[in-house]
């Protein structure tokens, strides 16, 4: 168990897109062990408050010097709305780093595919990417404002970045999968490993196309969580670890994931709300 529960100082907090914020927390103990694809459980309540009860899972978006952890989140409900009101100088309890993270295959080029807020962990992945391994990133979203900030982050990395929006306001007009087949050509016959994070329907499409191209594909999944550390079994998604161990028919996102091989997930039953 290498995770810790600490109170971290909020050192930066600002809006970077419509309803999208970045949050910088100083938590050196957690920063130290953090790997791309891992997440933290953040307690949004002021000290003494009891509601909203649960912590919220957020992927580590970037790391910085002096123990800095940066998260990128979208306001979607009550918890994230309350979080967005917090000023720098405040503090939050933060539990992490949690989960397995992406397994970078150094022997193969990487194809990073992010959708919307799902791009958050891919920035960390791209920044931590081994220097001598090729990397291409495809970022998609509904519209320009949704992906502009994340795209800028990635452009500061060695990644070659391709963009797609549903409305065509930035980059290709259409889904990320359109760009996926085109990107394949750039690898000149070598099979890249796909690393993907985004909304359920996108992951499903990416997984299918990766299977068609016979590519290894790692997907970072989301599920409602209570504990984030394997205690409650609440974060189940349909799938199978694929080892011979007793198999419940469910994967537990917090402990066995959040990153899974796409072929471990039962996509036909995957809840895509």
């Amino acid at each position, binding site marked *: 168990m290498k995770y810790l529960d600490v109170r971290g100082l909020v050192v930066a907090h600002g809006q970077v897109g419509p309803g999208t914020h970045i949050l910088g927390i100083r938590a050196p103990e957690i920063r130290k062990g953090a790997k791309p694809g891992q997440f933290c459980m953040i307690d949004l309540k002021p000290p003494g408050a009891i509601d909203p009860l649960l912590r919220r899972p957020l992927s580590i978006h970037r790391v910085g010097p002096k123990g800095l952890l940066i998260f990128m989140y979208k306001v979607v409900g009550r*918890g994230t709305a309350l979080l967005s009101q917090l000023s720098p100088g405040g503090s939050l309890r933060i539990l992490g780093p949690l989960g397995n993270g992406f397994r970078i295959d150094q022997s193969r080029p990487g194809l990073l595919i992010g959708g919307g807020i799902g791009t958050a962990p891919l920035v960390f992945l791209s920044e931590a990417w081994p220097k001598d391994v090729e990397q291409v990133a495809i970022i998609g979203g509904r519209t320009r404002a949704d992906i502009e900030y994340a795209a800028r982050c990635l452009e500061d990395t060695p990644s070659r970045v391709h963009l797609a929006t549903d409305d065509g306001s930035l980059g290709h007009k259409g889904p990320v999968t359109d760009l996926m087949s085109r990107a394949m050509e750039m690898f000149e016959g070598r099979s890249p490993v796909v690393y993907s994070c985004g909304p359920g329907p996108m992951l499903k499409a990416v997984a299918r196309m990766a299977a068609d191209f016979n590519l290894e594909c790692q997907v970072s999944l989301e599920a*409602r969580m*209570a504990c984030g550390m394997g*205690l409650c*079994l*609440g974060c189940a998604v349909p799938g199978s670890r694929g080892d011979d161990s007793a198999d*419940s028919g469910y994967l537990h996102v917090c402990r066995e994931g959040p990153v899974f091989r796409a072929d471990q997930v039962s996509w036909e039953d995957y809840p895509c709300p």
Partner: protein
Amino acid sequence: MSINPDLAVKTGPLNLKNPVLLASGTCGYGIELQGFVDLEKLGGIVVKGLSLEPRSGNPPPRLMETPCGLLNSIGLENVGVDRFISDKLPALSALDTAVIVNILGDSVRDYQELAGILDQVRGIDAIEVNISCPNVRAGGAAFGSDPDMASEVTAAVRKATSLPLIVKLSPNVTDITLIARAVEHAGADAISLINTLLGMSIDIKARRPVLANTFGGLSGPAIKPVALRMVWQAVRAVNIPVIGIGGIQNASDALEFLLAGAAAVQVGTATLVDPLVSVQILEGIRMYMKETGISDISGLPI
């Protein structure tokens, strides 16, 4: 005056070094917390409910946050009693804390068989019988919703084991004292309560229940007043020790249950939010006893 309060508890035939336990379903098989929480400080650990065979549990979504509460429909996913004994128990029983095994079944026979298996195993300090499960034979009403069924399960388990026997009651009943008395008479050494309240939530955008299972169990601070009332009633209805559960978030909450007459408490949902909280609760109880000059835990009930 500097007293060093004695926190040791005798819960029927079960001795606990202190009254703070981790509740079933909210601490995995205990070992998930090893190295993170100093489990040996605690009075004991109640592991996730076990069935004869492994269970998959319910389809997702299984969780929903509610005001000061949590709805869950895990559906009793567990590795089954055999894998628990082979894979989980060795590390757990090596710890210097009580190991309490929570069991569940579809029939009286299931419970009895489980108790029989566990009775043969070293390293288990007590059995907690979860009677909130549906009795498949009796049309799916929970064993715990009826004094006769509750009594039948208890008696069957009692026959199968000489381990200390805790029966965990469901709060979804008209009169908790009837159930409490029934299981006392059927041979329970202690009772624990409450399990979750049956609840639900609807997603008004998707226009369907949030949980795939429609209903779920409500836990957390929201239910504390109901839990405390039932514990108060149960304590006054039976002569066996009562373990208080429900919405305990901090030492003050735990003390409410101990003052109501509970011999011990279990911390559930709070551990999910704050994995270290149980140890802090224990410290808070110790502090309160020092401040109020109560030297023995048995002096707490009002």
